[in-house]
């Protein structure tokens, strides 16, 4: 956690694990609901102008969420999230895999570990995502064309980040 921003983003040196942390100005019940109820998830999960569409969601161990990220021109990218462990208002784990519209999964996916820390008025959420293959890591952003310009000046910083840890 940095003091300037409640948002933190780290990629480990093998580029296989991505960790994100954020502090929210809401109590744990509200934050937990936002992560575990489909009608709430769909309101924030897709970065605008994309939209999230949950076909079904069964939040219990062994249950699944089958959803799509929909681009402004209507293209759908489907994924399955299978819940592997749930400790209410504390932690849940899932296995995430991209799929076709008929729910046929791709060969490799990622393991997600989501931690929720009750801090009274605020809640800290830490998510770590372990990707099973490097190819998958590259494919993560397929379909998202956020068009960010990169500069050479960031190279040094990038190398330092990758070397740390």
């Amino acid at each position, binding site marked *: 956690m940095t003091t300037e921003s409640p948002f933190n983003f780290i990629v480990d040196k093998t580029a*296989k694990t*991505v960790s994100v942390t*954020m502090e929210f100005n809401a109590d744990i019940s509200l934050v937990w609901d936002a992560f575990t109820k489909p009608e709430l998830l769909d309101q924030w999960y897709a970065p605008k102008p994309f939209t999230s569409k949950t076909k079904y969601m069964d939040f219990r161990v062994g249950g699944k969420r089958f959803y799509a990220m929909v681009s402004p021109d209507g293209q759908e990218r489907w994924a399955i999230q299978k819940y592997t462990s749930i400790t209410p208002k504390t932690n849940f784990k899932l296995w995430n895999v991209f799929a076709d519209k008929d729910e046929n999964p791709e060969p490799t996916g990622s393991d997600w570990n989501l931690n929720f820390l009750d801090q009274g008025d605020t809640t800290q959420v830490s998510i770590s995502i372990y990707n099973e293959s490097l*190819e998958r890591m590259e494919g993560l952003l397929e379909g998202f064309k*956020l068009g960010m310009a990169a500069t050479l000046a960031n190279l040094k910083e990038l*190398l330092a980040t*990758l070397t740390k840890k």
Partner: protein
Amino acid sequence: MRRDIFQAIADPTRRAIITLIAVQAMTPNAIADNFNTTRQAVSKHLRILTECELVKQEQQGREIYYSLEFEKMKEIDKWLDQLRKLWETRFNQLDQLLSTMKKQKK
């Protein structure tokens, strides 16, 4: 076998080689002098880096010099930046949703 840039940076020795040649083009011997390993091992890393198109070779007289393909390096940077941006946007949207939900509760 298909190589990608993430494979290139997944190894500590290869990351060290990248850092070295980012400063200046170097011969394989000069690179190997920086490591406590065999010349063959360094050659293998250089081959992988070349296959990932992260380094380029240039013949200068009798020597081959390796240097960094900055454009390719930028690809990693761009990719990381996009992923970071994705989560930042997502969390900002959640932040807004939570404040709306809080107001509705009152």
